[in-house]
């Protein structure tokens, strides 16, 4: 469902051109569990941003569900982000003034769904991450692991096809980190495509497929057996 063809992303830093991604070819199928690994600055976050349509490639094509995204305008990309893609970040990115339930509700508010439908789906998403009893708490009243669970609930409330996670356990202790990993793996087993950027070799080992980047190039791309 995801196909990258000869895709490059360049940044101008001073008078030097940096190749964050250099002629990448990659395809990821529906329901896959992919971890993207590599040292800092190897381009893995840039790749994730491009996959999430937050960033656009300098050249090459990104084909998502058969549609070439280079022909899309801002609104169409926003639409895809709203309906097909869920994001999880290292620093959670919850809106501090809103309760857990309201944070989860925001994607649906932006999409213009009715109050009734929103309430139903928010409750379902919060139940999915085991936070029903915390729905009225604000982010500052929640632990790190709980915050990330709220963020996961927010990412799945629109029932996307792809879940993009950027170091989801980076700000968590090992116990809550592994809880989070288990949770997103469960979601993956439910059919959600999971693409994970991580430093953590342990998490890398658990995924179906590992992609290793160095200086904007894929140096390792292998499907592994058994979890």
């Amino acid at each position, binding site marked *: 469902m995801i196909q990258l063809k000869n895709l490059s992303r360049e940044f101008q830093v001073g008078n030097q051109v940096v190749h964050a991604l250099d002629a990448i070819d990659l395809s990821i199928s529906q329901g896959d569990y992919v971890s993207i690994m590599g040292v800092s600055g190897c381009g893995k976050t840039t790749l994730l*941003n491009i996959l*999430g349509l*937050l*960033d656009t490639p300098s050249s090459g094509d990104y084909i998502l569900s058969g549609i070439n995204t280079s022909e899309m305008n*801002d*609104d169409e990309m*926003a*639409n895809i*982000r*709203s*309906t097909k893609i869920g*994001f999880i*970040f290292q*620093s959670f*990115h919850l*809106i*501090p*003034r*809103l309760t857990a339930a*309201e944070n989860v509700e*925001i*994607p649906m*508010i*932006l*999409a*213009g769904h009715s109050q009734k439908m929103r309430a139903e789906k928010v409750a379902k998403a919060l139940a999915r991450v085991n936070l029903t009893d915390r729905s009225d708490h604000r982010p500052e009243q929640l632990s790190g692991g709980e915050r990330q669970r709220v963020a996961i609930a*927010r*990412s799945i409330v*629109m029932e996307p096809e792809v879940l993009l996670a950027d170091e989801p356990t980076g700000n968590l202790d090992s116990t809550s980190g592994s809880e989070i990993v288990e949770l997103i793996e469960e979601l993956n087993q439910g059919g959600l495509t999971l693409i994970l950027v991580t430093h953590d070799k342990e998490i890398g080992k658990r995924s179906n497929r590992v992609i290793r980047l160095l200086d904007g190039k894929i140096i390792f791309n292998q499907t592994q057996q058994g979890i």
Partner: protein
Amino acid sequence: MKFSDLLFLAFSSLIRYPLRTMMLLIATSIGVMAVILLTAVGEGARDYITSEFRDLGTNLIIVIPGKHETSGGGGPADFAGLAPRDLTVEDAISLRQIDTIKAIAPIVLGEMPASFGGFERDVPVIGTTPEFLRVRRWEMREGDFLPGVTLDRSPPVCAIGKEVEKELFGTSRAIGQWLRVGDRRCRVTGIIDSDGRAIGIDVQKIVVMPVSLVTALFNRPSLFRIIAEAESRIYMDQIKKDIIRIIKKRHQGKEDITVVRQDTVMASFDNIFNVLTMALASIASISLFVAGILIMNVMLVAVSQRQSEIGLLKAIGAKNRQISNLFLTEAILLSGSGAILGLILGHSITLSLKTIFPTYNFLPPTWASVVSLFVALICGALFGLIPARRAAKLDPVIALSGEK
């Protein structure tokens, strides 16, 4: 995104930063309040000046002693410090020869102690003729207004205001009693029912007596002014000329009076004070404008403070338009509630000023409230536009990379 959700999101960020919100509310409300207060003063002044003329009847011509030039300085007499020649009761009588004048009401003004029984108080005394009642459109509560009085006949009678009646006569019946005013005595023949003000004097506090009695009382022949009522509007300009001609002849050929038509005076006062009020309103609007710029500045800061939030909203599917709408709504919500706060403040301050200084008029005009509310809203929208655009244009990758 539904409008109610937009409001909810905008509102939730406003209460997130209470200090910032309070400061902006105060800034906007001061602007609106200034508009309300200044226009209230201007409109009050207009009302104070024109009310005297407004209460009068129609087709009135007013004769005032002294020549009031509207262009340039006065004549040699003014430089020599010579007072204008008095306008007298005889002058008023001489105007009878103009047969298109329906009624003549001379006015003498002064203050005298009035007493009845053991009670005494200083009262404003007006000397005039029965025509004055019609000219001023007063109503009598009881009895007659100066019965039998003409320009040359002055029986000792008087009419009193309601407050004079209450304070001097208490519960006893005033009609038919002898009231002492200065060194004269006159029989009370009527109680004036009207309230409000005439020539700047509270009608409820006055004693009205025959004109010649009052000139004798103050030992001074000069009239405050003469009011003449024309048979019809079409004669007014001719009457004006005739009055000047007749009085000039009586005053040894010197034109030492001013004759004005009540309707034109009223119209020009109205004009002057409308311009004044508009000028005050525009000065006050500057503070509204300043408040708008303040909103813009603070919103610009808010956009950079909330970069990561904007990035997140984009990541979860917000369109550029939704982001800019969100910030625009915040700006309009701020300026709108600031304006409403200002309206409440402005109106309550004018109300309390009214109770503290009942003799001054503070009349905040309705248009000032409406206009200042709209100007505030438009300011909010216009000045909110730039920050809203900037928020919408933010690159989500850069916005998200900023750590919270």
